[in-house]
């Protein structure tokens, strides 16, 4: 066995009443890629922040290269050869690449010498690791993939031997992610040690040598990647067997509840985003809209839910028209039984600075149930929030907690609970499980299917093809603003993929 680059022994860390890490032991061998997986909120990021000196552990010991060390600040970590690539890049957007790289590691009080030295050092690093990036480019003008490369270069410039990457692929396109993996493999060949934090099991299988699984603040297992399976890891993460494909019965489609005819929507630049789209959603069925992000799905959802005006077309809700080109407002549609779970829960679905109970009635706060005369009926709101917390297993179960302090999956559950519990006739859901961990995905899928079985019409938009296939009774594929095909739930991934790429569309158009 190779010598351990990092050993964590008995690490404990609490934030107030929440124990983020309890008695964590971890050993990472030198020159390997070690994955750490776990659901959102399992304590992965906290653990790595302790290693990087961002937080101090309440107790426990850290050893780097076999020697016990104390890491109080990021400076200590950097001096020990630990570098970190944060989930949200720690870059100054309007600085150049070089300025970002030398920030905090300037070799001289004057910039001229520091920059000259960094420039030649950067050239060497770029040659050695194949990490090309223009040193004089302004960060905000670079695509995210390159920004991440700057973060890696920053760590290497500081002499990092151990590189921690926190959810590195969350913001990357698949091609950028592949490129990142090639870079990481190359770094490993040069003898660097890499710790990769993620909740995407596919990445773990593709690139790591060993993998540790965290669950609710504890380290539950460490496996050699080759000797484990996605199924086993998923089970370890959640603590029970996960249905990667939800079971559901046949749909019993009823009357048409939502009908979209010749809908055309333009964005603020005047570009046509939704082009003459027509479809129906019946009660008791889930219609899924698949497509590569940016092909008009977002605009379609926004138009139907009254957030964005349409140029032309007709939408009928329960047989009655919605005035989409004029002033259909989301509140009116809500009253008419259309519930909407927006794609972007942070900016549209929730007010993160509000308490959980406030968010759980947001948009329905005019409802008589929550009012006492002109005032909010706090008791009723709290009782309602507690009820939803129980039904949807929202954790932590404290309706007084600020919404920003919930993990992504639980935030999504707050939105879903709010919209589903209004018992709407039509539910439209954008990206139901974006950034949500495995356990919550299964739960959310089950709730959506339960809605369907109650005879509701459900429209789901998702960029996750697996999700669309496992949920939908009918699948519509969007490409360049048009619906280019409809398939049943048994459509193969390849078939849908061709449609999403617009291949069949061109053939059909002839």
């Amino acid at each position, binding site marked *: 066995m190779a010598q351990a680059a990092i050993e964590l022994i008995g690490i404990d860390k609490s934030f107030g009443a929440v124990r983020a890490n309890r008695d964590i032991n971890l050993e990472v061998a030198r020159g390997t890629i070690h994955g750490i997986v776990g659901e959102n909120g399992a304590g992965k*990021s906290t653990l790595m922040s302790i290693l990087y000196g961002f937080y101090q552990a309440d107790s426990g010991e850290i050893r780097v290269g076999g020697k016990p060390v104390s890491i109080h600040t990021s400076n200590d970590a950097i001096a020990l050869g630990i570098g970190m690539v944060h989930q949200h890049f*720690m870059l100054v957007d309007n600085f150049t690449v070089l300025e970002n790289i030398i920030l905090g590691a300037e070799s001289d009080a004057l910039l001229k010498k520091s920059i000259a030295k960094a420039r030649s050092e950067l050239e060497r690093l770029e040659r050695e690791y194949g990490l090309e990036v223009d040193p004089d480019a302004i960060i905000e003008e670079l695509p995210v993939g390159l920004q991440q490369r700057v973060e890696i270069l920053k760590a290497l410039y500081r002499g990092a031997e151990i590189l921690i990457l926190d959810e590195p692929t969350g913001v990357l396109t698949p091609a950028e992610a592949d490129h990142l993996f090639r870079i990481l493999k190359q770094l490993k060949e040069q003898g660097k040690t890499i710790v990769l934090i993620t909740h995407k099991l596919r990445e773990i299988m593709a690139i790591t040598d060993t993998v540790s699984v965290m669950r609710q603040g504890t380290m539950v297992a460490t496996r050699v990647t080759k000797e484990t399976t996605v199924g086993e890891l998923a089970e370890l993460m959640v603590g029970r067997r996960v249905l990667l494909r939800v079971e559901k019965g046949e749909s019993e489609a009823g009357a048409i509840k939502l009908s979209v005819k010749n809908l055309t929507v333009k964005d603020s630049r005047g570009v046509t985003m939704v082009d003459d789209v027509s479809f129906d959603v019946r009660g008791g069925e889930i219609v899924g809209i698949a497509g590569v992000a940016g092909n008009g799905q977002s605009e379609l959802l926004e138009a139907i839910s009254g957030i964005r005006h349409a140029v032309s077309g007709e939408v009928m809700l329960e047989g009655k028209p919605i005035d989409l080109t004029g002033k259909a407002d989301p509140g009116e549609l809500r009253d008419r039984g259309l519930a909407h779970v927006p794609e972007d829960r942070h900016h549209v679905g929730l007010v993160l600075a509000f308490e959980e109970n406030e968010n759980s009635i947001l948009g329905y706060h005019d409802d008589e149930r929550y009012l006492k005369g002109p005032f909010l009926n706090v008791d009723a709101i709290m009782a309602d929030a507690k009820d939803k917390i129980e039904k949807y297993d929202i954790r932590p179960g404290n309706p007084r907690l600020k919404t920003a302090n919930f993990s992504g999956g639980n935030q999504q559950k707050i939105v879903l609970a709010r919209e589903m519990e209004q018992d709407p006739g039509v539910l439209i859901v954008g990206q139901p499980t974006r950034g949500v961990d495995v356990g919550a995905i299964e739960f959310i899928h089950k709730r959506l299917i339960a809605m369907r079985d109650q005879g509701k019409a459900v429209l789901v938009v998702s960029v996750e093809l697996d999700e669309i296939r496992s949920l939908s009774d009918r699948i519509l594929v969007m490409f360049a603003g048009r619906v280019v095909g409809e398939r049943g739930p048994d459509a193969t991934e390849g078939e849908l993929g061709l449609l999403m790429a617009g291949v069949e569309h061109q053939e059909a158009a002839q």
Partner: protein
Amino acid sequence: MDSFNAIIQVLDSTIRLSVPLLLACLAGLFSERAGIFDIGLEGKMLVGAFAGASAAAVFHSALIGLGMAILISVAFALVHGFASITHRGNQIVSGVAINFIAAGSTIILGQAWFSQGGRTPALQPDERFAAIIWPGADAIRDVPIIGPIYAELISGHSILVYFAFAMVPFTWWVLFRTRFGLRMRAVGENPAAVDTAGISVAWLRYRALICTGILTGVAGAYLSMVQNGGFVKDMTAGKGYIALAALIFAKWKPVNAMFACLLFGFLDAAAIRLQGSPLPIIGKVPVQFMQALPYVLTVILLAGFIGKAIPPRAGGVPYVKER
């Protein structure tokens, strides 16, 4: 020749009037570039003016006066830092509080110490910063055009005037050519990046505020020991706010700041010059209108002429480590 002399005089007073603005504006530049909004420039100038005039009168030394002005102004800057950096308080509230404390305490202390209705004793010539006459200024004064420009505009100002204008390239150099400047700009844009690079956000911001305090101290000393021969209550008269406006107008850049302050100084000088004299076409206008003109133009300039001014992105936000 008369109109030429009039122009020279207006430009000369433009320089004199823009100096306190320029110093305050550069002071604000240091703190805002580091991510701390400082609406308390006004108050710090005021305590600087009071401390400078008081110390100069008591110790009969202009230098001691200047030193005291800087010391007290820096102390107030550190109070702002303590509230808004260490305790993550609201920077606007802290700045406004400093303005109030400055306005009240200078009058009370002035009355208690000197019993002249809040004024400080009139300073003797050796207790003030005298004008520096450049070599040959008197000799070429009568040479047409060049003479008055050299003798009036360039020569004959106090050392603090030259200091203020020298601070423009110096500030630029610090900001864009030194490690401190790079880190200061970074902390105003993304303090988390600075923190993860292993640099203390708080200490960096405190140092920026000390620079702010030094400059507002000099600005105050200029008001009470150069422009005026002593402290008068509320003698800053909104210059701290005009300096903030100039800072936005200048888009947080030192050289732009100089031109912005010269413009505001010029408006002021022109207003004084034109008081009571009839304007062509319009005729005689009330004095109050001319006095209001710089402020009216400030609003117009800020509203329409600067395009999009992007402030430092982390400005006004206390830094909290986040998970």
